[in-house]
């Protein structure tokens, strides 16, 4: 057995191990009943994805994955869960009646993709500049040359999303000249009414015909 073969076998083992962790923890994220545990497994999935990036020699993306997804987003989700009242109730069901149908459709889609893509020979990926100048430098150069416009549009997108988040999370606005105290009081009352209902969101109460 030559050194090259050993290396290939090793990288295959690492790949399947990491992929197994990603798929397994992703399934746990959507099936676990406790939302806090779901969030922790989400972090694990993010982390294993970072490992996959490393096996692809994309160290920069791996670092970004850990920093942003595991570090920032994951912790943010945990904070949001801990700061939200009643969200930790274990009664929240994460599966629905159409669970079996959904599983069947997903499995069929997966089977179809394996059938089509497994048989097809993918041509070797052409050389890009990233190999010579390093991936971080390559990404930076592309972002400020070829991908300049999408890059700038993303920044506008983020501002828009920020404004939208503020609007959705806003406090009730004073209506037509009433003082802010009155508006706050009304908001508090509204919330009490909503909270006292058995299912506060009222989603089940709509009768709609499909």
């Amino acid at each position, binding site marked *: 057995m030559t050194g090259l073969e050993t290396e290939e076998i090793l990288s295959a083992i690492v790949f399947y191990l990491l992929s197994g962790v990603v798929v397994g923890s992703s399934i746990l994220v959507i099936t676990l009943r406790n939302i806090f545990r779901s969030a922790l497994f989400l972090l694990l999935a993010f982390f294993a994805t970072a490992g996959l990036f490393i096996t692809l020699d994309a160290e920069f993306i791996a670092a970004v994955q850990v920093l942003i997804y595991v570090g920032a987003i994951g912790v943010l989700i945990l904070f949001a869960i801990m700061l939200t009242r009643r969200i930790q109730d274990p009664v929240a069901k994460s599966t629905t009646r159409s669970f079996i149908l959904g599983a069947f459709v997903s499995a069929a889609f997966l089977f179809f*993709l394996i059938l*089509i*893509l497994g048989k*097809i*020979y*993918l*041509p070797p*990926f*052409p050389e*890009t500049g990233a190999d010579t100048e390093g991936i971080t430098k390559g990404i930076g150069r592309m972002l*400020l*040359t*070829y*991908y*300049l*416009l*999408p890059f700038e*549009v*993303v920044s*506008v*997108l983020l*501002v*828009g*999303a920020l*404004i*939208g988040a*503020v*609007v*959705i999370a*806003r406090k009730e*606005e004073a*209506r*037509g000249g009433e003082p802010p105290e009155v508006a706050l009081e009304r908001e508090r009352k*509204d919330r009490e009414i909503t909270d006292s209902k058995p299912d506060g*969101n*009222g*989603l089940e*109460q*709509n009768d*709609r*015909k*499909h």
Partner: protein
Amino acid sequence: MVDIDFSLLLPELILIGGAFFIIALDLIFRRRVTWLLLPVSVLIVAFAMYVAIDLAGTVASTVMNTFVVDTFSIVMKVIIMLATIFILMLTDGYKPLGNAHQGEFVGLILLASSAMCFMVSAGDMVMLYVAIEFTSIISYILVGYLRRNPLSIEAGIKYFLFGAVSSAIMLFGMSLLYVLTATTNLGGIVEGIMHGAVNPKIVLVSVSLFMVGLAFKMGAVPMHLWVPDVYQGAPTPITAYISVASKTAGVAAFLRIAFWFAPMLDVASGEWVNILSFVSMASMVLGTVIGILQNNLKRLLAYSAISHIGFIIIGVIVGQEVGMIAVVYYMVAYLFMTMGAFAIVIMVADATGGYELNDYVMLSKRKPSLALLMTIFLISLAGIPPTVGFFAKFYVFAAAIKQGYIMLAIVGVLASVVGLFMYARVLKAMYLDKNDEIMKKPFGAIPPPSWAVVGLCLLGTLIFGVYPKPIVEIARYCCNLFGG
């Protein structure tokens, strides 16, 4: 260095700048100038539209082919901006929104318009994806804007979940295309596939997955499930906005990519046409048949929108000059008739407080002018002369028959006939049904800007329904696609 031709990007830049200007104006004057926001925003969009029209005739690209400008993109942008102007005018009379946070509401609408313009002009997969996500994220916020209304929140969440799934599928298709060609440029992909020995099956699979994202934006079967619920739950001006502007942007991107990719799909053309034909026929049939069962006007118009997408896709399948003219004409027609119908739905809901068919009973007695206008828009949606909707369907069917897609034309004609019944139910409620109780209820006043919108839509519906030549001439210029 990157050469950037800012003159090509100007309409989008004006919209983005205008959005932040409106939000800043509202904040600086601490919400004391809300009456000023709508006129100013209408002026901003009108100015952006003027700049866009000024670009007509240019066929160019900038920022290394990621942004493409040609007559087709300009016509589509004008439709999107006209829709935006109509929406802004309708927002004035829309009560559930109240006075609160109008600055943000208007600002987000302008941002969404700029995102849709980017979508129309995208010449690169990454640009297209960013534009689609931009449009979607702003739309989720606008759909769920009525925080106190459970239906609105439900619609927002549903829209978001469907959008996220379709984005994931689309990204998978895009990544396959990138693996095959090592470029994200749409023109580069065609070149890479044509010159490389790539299995046509994998091209077909990746392009189909790619198109799922656009099918979601257009609301075509099988990506239509969100349409009725979102249309029903969203604030009605936003429903109209998603129905017209967002759909126009989706159709524009879809048509551009279908036209560009046509040579590379030729090897698998039979299967590609089959896939599109299925989507088209399923949309037409499902939209009209289920539409008949609806008692809520917003849901009825949602199913009507699904069926219209089916007709539009026929034009994309046909391709070439006839197909292009059919699609462009259909989009113009769709703008006027759908916007008009939604404007009246908003007026009636503001005056009576409901969206159900029951609220339209005896409208011919209570408000004869509204009933007559609604009739005109509905017969246009059904495709009866002398309205713009008739020519829209006529050009689509003529194009299909000319290129030998007889089956599509037959299904289309049958779907139009069934669709007639769907719209006739509303006419029956307005003119024939009797209910003495409802006559006693007061009918509220209607704000002048809404009348202006309805008037403009009426003019568009009738003038182009009698004299379609100007639109056809403009559509003929659209055939000169950049790089096509």
